């Protein structure tokens, strides 16, 4: 028998606070300046490999967020917003590409903004040409994934934010055994949090081992 837990653990929604910059100083400074009211550029595109933090930054930007992976035709986009964040533009379908094309035109005309994220730089995106060139017309920055040391720091930060105390050796333990992109590591931390609450046990290496076994089984 397994005790279920109440849904009251703190969620850590992506914010600019809990983003670890790593070697992305240039991109982040660019983004911070772009998000400022004084900015005149309407389009900002981040590209980089999965787990580099693109979705995190888009969700933290406070722009109306849409994810083309879940919503490839962008049917959920509410055009009246002034700032839009569209994630995974490479996953847009034909209708979604037209929708984004229109959105960009509208935002340009009305002084609104688009923050986009893609898996590749605009030149290598397999999108319709009029959209692809538009995406390449604004500020384009590459987001580099964190180094291992930076990931450790980021994970420690997230644990602290959850009010968790992990033994110092826990991080290197996890690192050797779990997928090392930030997204998986953060998901693992959530699983550890939940499991420790379920078991009413402090977080120890044996507990981590149990979590890893169950989460890797899935």
């Amino acid at each position: 028998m397994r005790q279920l837990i109440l849904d009251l653990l703190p969620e850590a929604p992506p914010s600019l606070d809990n983003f670890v910059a790593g070697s992305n100083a240039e991109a982040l400074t660019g983004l911070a300046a772009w998000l400022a009211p004084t900015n005149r550029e309407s389009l900002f595109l981040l590209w980089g490999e999965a787990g580099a933090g693109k979705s995190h930054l888009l969700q933290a930007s406070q722009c109306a967020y849409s994810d083309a992976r879940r919503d490839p035709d962008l049917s959920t986009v509410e055009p009246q917003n002034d700032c839009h964040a569209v994630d995974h533009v490479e996953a847009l379908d034909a209708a979604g590409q037209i929708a984004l094309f229109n959105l960009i035109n509208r935002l340009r005309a009305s002084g609104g903004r688009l923050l986009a994220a893609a898996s590749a730089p605009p030149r290598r995106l397999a999108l319709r040409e009029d959209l692809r060139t538009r995406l390449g017309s604004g500020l384009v920055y590459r987001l580099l994934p964190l180094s291992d040391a930076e990931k450790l720091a980021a994970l420690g930060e997230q644990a602290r934010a959850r009010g968790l105390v992990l033994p110092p050796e826990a991080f290197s333990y996890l690192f050797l055994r779990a997928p090392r992109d930030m997204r998986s590591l953060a998901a693992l931390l959530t699983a550890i949090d939940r499991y420790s609450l379920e078991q009413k046990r402090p977080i120890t290496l044996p507990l981590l081992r149990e979590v890893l076994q169950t989460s890797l089984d899935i």
Partner: protein
Amino acid sequence: MSSFWTSCLSQFEQELPPQQFNTWIRPLRLEGEEDCARGLRLLAPNGFILKWVKERYLARIEELGSEYFSVPVSVTLTLGERAAAPLNMTSGSPGKAPPVTGATVTSGTAVKNASLVDQQRSSYEKTRLIPTFTFDNLVVGKANDLARAASRQVAISPGEATYNPLFIYGGAGLGKTHLVHAIGNQILEHDPDKVVRYVHAEDYYSDVVRAYQQKSFDVFKRYYRSLDVLLLDDVQFFNNKNRTQEEFFYVFNALSESKKQIVISCDTYPKNISGLEDRLITRFDWGLTVQIEPPETEMRVAILKKKAEVEGVALDDEVAFYVAKHLRSNVRELEGALKKVLAYSAFHGRQISLDLAKEALKDLIGSVNRQITVENIQKTVADYFKIKVADLFSKKRTRVIVRPRQIAMWLAKNLTSQSYPSIGDAFGGRDHTTVLHAVRTIDDLRTKDNELNHNVHVLLQVLKG
């Protein structure tokens, strides 16, 4: 008020490139008195800046504080509303209350007289014209010379039969929209009473749908027929939207009969638009059809220099040439690349130079700028015309094969550094005169045959990436 903080700011201003200083340090505010015994409290406008400063600059601030007060000073950073920073990212919710309005289109200042913004908004609502797209800031070159001349003519005397409609076509990102807006803006400048309306084909379609749903076709028709100038952008978006095409057909007839100007832009020439009724295509050819081609290198250089000038930056020829050389296919990405170079220079606080441009664009250009080879020209051309690569080498002389073969040879000559004989070799061991003939034939046909010219154009874009 706070002399330490003032001196601290000026110290950072010296130590950091302007963009970094403006982004991270300037938004900070000192709270309360400068009492070194109790420590200093700095307010950051948002968590992002707070975290960043804590990680990278806090130690330096404490160092400066200790120097200033001659005793160790502790500095704490907290989030604070009072930090009425120019870079307030988290304030408000951009989703609802617009932090940025039409003001950004024309002006760099964030705070703007509200009535002016309103005014701009309402005039924008009426015409949908973007005021910054004018003939003055359009860079002219061989690629858009004809289109520009025709557009100017239309702007001076709208409604003349020889230019009605004016049909402007060309690939993505070459400045069609700019031209279309420039026409509208100039007409209004001459005669503010003219009723001008810019409409993107997708928005026109939405209007039709709305009229259909709200059963308000009368209002819709009356509105569009009341215009003096209709500027319709990206008409290729009408494909297979039959009801929209029909509505537009009537608007077109009504306007042209009453000698009202119609300007249409498209990504291809009329006969090549897919999913469009013949009667519309015929009408699109009534007036003048002009093409915008991808800009040649000199023009791209000129565009870059002009854009840089607008940003208040002087761009060296060699930098402009480097960027222009690597971004060939369209103006939009050219602008994106320039923005990147400017931002990179601002971030690092370094002058723009060729080396800096190379560093700034390495992610953008880098691996992507693959070598164009005869081999991938052959493959691309074969794919495009839906024939086999082997056909290009073969002795077949049917027209379906000959033209693509000639186009492929023309592309090989223009995009690679191969000689005529080596191109001949690469096409099944043909003589160099065959290649020479092919190149001349295509050069000649491009000026006469719209369809062929379009095909070459698309292939150029694809190959140049």
